[in-house]
């Protein structure tokens, strides 16, 4: 009735866990990238607005924008490290 159950019954538990950890790693990294993606969009979008309004302050805005990107991006990168750890460690 459920052929997948037969496959599960024949699968070695270790292999099964490997598969689960691969799925978890993929979903985990994908989820970790959502927030920083939106965040970097907001940071850069507002920086562009500011630069367009006041082109003379573009240098200062750009420096601050990179700072904001660096802070926002950290979460995605930690997610990537967790992905590597789950997948390979």
């Amino acid at each position, binding site marked *: 009735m459920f052929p997948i159950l037969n496959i599960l019954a024949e699968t070695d538990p270790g292999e099964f866990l490997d598969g689960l950890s691969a799925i978890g790693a993929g979903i985990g990294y994908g989820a970790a990238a959502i927030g920083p993606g939106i965040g970097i969009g907001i940071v850069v979008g507002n920086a562009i607005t500011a630069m367009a309004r006041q082109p003379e302050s573009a*240098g*200062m805005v750009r*420096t601050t924008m*990179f*700072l904001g*990107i*660096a*802070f926002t*991006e*950290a979460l995605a*990168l*930690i997610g*990537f*490290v967790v992905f*590597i750890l789950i997948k*390979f460690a």
Partner: protein
Amino acid sequence: MILAVQAEGGGGGLHFPPIEEILEWPGILFKDTVFEVNKVVLLMWAAALIVFLLFWAAARAAKSGRLVPTGVKSVVEMGIDFVRNDIILQTMGPSGLPWTPFLVTIFFYVFFTNIFEVIPGIQFPVNARMALPAFLALLVWVIFNVVGIKSQGLGGYFKSMLFPPGVPKFLLPLVALIEFVSTIFVRPFSLAVRLFANMLAGHLLLITFAVLSAALWTASPLAIILPLPFLMLVLLTGFEILVAVLQAFIFTILAAVYIGGAMHPEH
């Protein structure tokens, strides 16, 4: 993934190297001791040597007395100018100018250790191993704490770190806890992980497309779509050059912000 399966069926075979093969290098000197020297350590020394020679040549050119900078000297002057005007003056103000030598060194060293990622024949960013980013982050951590304690005193430094002005009274304990954890633990950790993960991700991306291109090259019927992953490889190489510069910039600017913040508390 379909491509990968087909390439395997086509007789070429797609062998994606396991992560140990990508990141772990056999020792060359002093094998099986703590001081084992492998490719990564050699690259680390090479970067230090390149930075040293660059500035030495520029200093020699400066001593020769010609006022118009040429060649190496103009590159070094541009780098110093960039760190001075775009990093220090923007984040620390004029009182941060004594830190120019340190930050210029950090910028050039991180840049050269990163740029090894795309240099043909080497193609390994030193910062894709945690050792160097962790050390640099620890160095910055020690420096900004020492600077803070020196310029504000032990009590004053922790007071300005834990109790930022303008926070309601009932939130103070929570804010103090968050500020303490974020300044003492999260700052060095995120500084190291940011550099490390960026370079590791770039290295893995380049490897993925290089392996795919190589597999398609050997799988003759599929060679017709070879240009696609190869084009991607070329584009990503350009992107990684940008990332190498950007990460050196971000590491330096964050070091500047941390040291500057420790020197002048927020009012």
